[in-house]
């Protein structure tokens, strides 16, 4: 028996009609990556490089001197007040908007986004107009020896303003996508409103909640413009990390400025990592419903 040789089939060049030629593909990739390197990667590298330009000792000294520590404390305080408040607001707003049909709903949804479209400087200014010396409540506050502007309360208020939308705008679409059937089922089975919120709704939105909280926290700790207007820049007292960077920079203390800035850049990197993780979980939670 002789074997008949099979005809040699050379692998046909894999050509998909909906794909560009490799040449075009790599040009586009390179173009995109160069743009991103120039505008994203380079600044990121520069922060850490400039911060460590004079070595670790100078770096550590810059971030452990008393004014820097005071700035860290104030930044954490402002975030610790603003984030939980906006968290509660976000849950309440999302519950009302996602679970109910009522008139004026779309207007309310746009109003929640309002702080995003207001310049941070204007956000600071409006609090000065209310609580500042020349403001509405100014005389009354001075009489009672309460300071809000150029003091910690002003910084907290400005921080709250600029971070109001973060959690709500994350939760609203998520809860709308999940629908209300699970909550209705819980109520039919005899659960109270709080039991439903605690056992059904919150577990279902936990990753979205985390995602919004991470973004809210990043902005709360990093806010500059709004806080700058109300702070008064009193070293050791009303200086947040972001403002401290500015002060050091304007004093030509570049290494210290970049050292403090590198802390904030680290915070940004941690934020990006957590955000990426949470994002994947949110996608899972949206699709892995009963409908899958």
């Amino acid at each position, binding site marked *: 028996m002789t074997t008949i040789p099979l005809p040699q089939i050379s692998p046909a060049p894999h050509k998909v*009609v909906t794909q560009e030629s490799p040449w075009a593909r790599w040009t*586009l990739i390179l173009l995109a990556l160069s743009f991103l390197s120039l*505008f*994203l990667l*380079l600044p990121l590298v520069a922060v850490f490089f400039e911060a460590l330009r004079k070595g670790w000792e100078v770096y550590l000294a810059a971030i452990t001197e008393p004014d820097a520590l005071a700035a860290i404390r104030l930044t954490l305080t402002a975030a610790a007040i603003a984030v939980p408040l906006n968290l509660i607001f976000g849950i*309440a707003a999302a519950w009302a908007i996602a679970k109910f049909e009522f008139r004026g709903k779309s207007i*309310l949804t746009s109003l929640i986004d309002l702080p995003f479209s207001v310049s941070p400087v204007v956000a600071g200014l409006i609090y000065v107009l209310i609580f500042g010396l020349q403001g509405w409540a100014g005389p009354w506050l001075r009489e009672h020896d309460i300071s809000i502007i150029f003091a910690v309360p002003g910084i907290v208020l400005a921080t709250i303003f600029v971070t109001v939308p973060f959690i709500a705008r994350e939760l609203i679409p998520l809860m709308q996508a999940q629908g209300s059937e699970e909550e209705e089922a819980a109520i039919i089975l005899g659960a109270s409103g709080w039991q439903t919120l605690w056992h059904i709704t919150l577990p279902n939105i936990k990753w979205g909640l985390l995602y919004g909280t991470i973004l809210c926290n990043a902005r709360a700790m990093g806010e500059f413009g709004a806080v700058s207007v109300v702070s008064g820049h009193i070293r050791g007292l009303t200086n947040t990390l972001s403002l401290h960077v500015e002060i050091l920079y304007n004093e030509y203390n*570049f290494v210290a400025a970049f050292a403090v800035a590198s802390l904030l850049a680290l915070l940004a990197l941690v934020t990006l990592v957590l955000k990426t993780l949470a994002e994947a979980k949110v996608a899972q939670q949206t699709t892995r419903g009963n409908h899958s």
Partner: protein
Amino acid sequence: MSTFKQHSVLPGFNLALGFTLLYLSLVVLIPLSAAFIYSAKLTWPEFWNAVTAPRVVASYRLTFGASFAAAAVNAFFGLLVAWVLVRYPFPGKRLVDALIDLPFALPTSVAGITLTAIYAGNGWLGQYLEPLGIKVAFTPLGVFVALTFIGLPFVVRTVQPVLEDIEKELEEAAAMLGATRWQTFRYIIFPAVLPALTTGFALAFARAIGEYGSVIFIAGNIPMVSEITPLLIITKLEQYDYAGATAIAVVMLVISFILLLIINLLQWWVRHRSTKA
């Protein structure tokens, strides 16, 4: 209560809506209205003079001009980046995707001093650009660079999901009808992402107009040349010219509101597009 709210068995509507409205009013709406009420202290000619002084007008020109240019550059590169991220596999793609949001996460003062360090005359790139006659830091060009940085994620993040949703069948159909790749992009893909692209552009533009932190370090803040409008508000405030500062703030607020309205309409357009198909 008639038809204000549709019936639902879920409890907590009054509590949730009540708290939402109270919080929003106290934190956002009442303070914002303060700006409008305060500006009413000025007579109309006073207001008009405050917001049309030559230095102010120059700042508008810079703010809007640089914001527009930055948003336009971001529209182009944002579309390109979104395209590359959605369509092509390449090493390190997930890392790049995560890094896109850096401008959202990085405090603006950090961005400001870093960009300055890069583009100053003796800086990382500045030392090479300066001999070529390109001055970036402390010029309007620097403002443009800072605004490009902070607006970068908007276009990418609005276009990306739309590109992901485009049905492959549409492109295959176009190819089978004889369209070249470029024609397919021009007549099929581009029209589909146009609403999202416009939305991303508008978002980047709106953000750039109000931006302060990342700009003031690199701008040099020379009156009539590289002074942005938000900085002018702060300058007036530091001179205790509350009325003048408020007048400019009101102009900016009105523009923000108009942009917000436009963005809402655009987003409606995007949704409408995607549900119609």
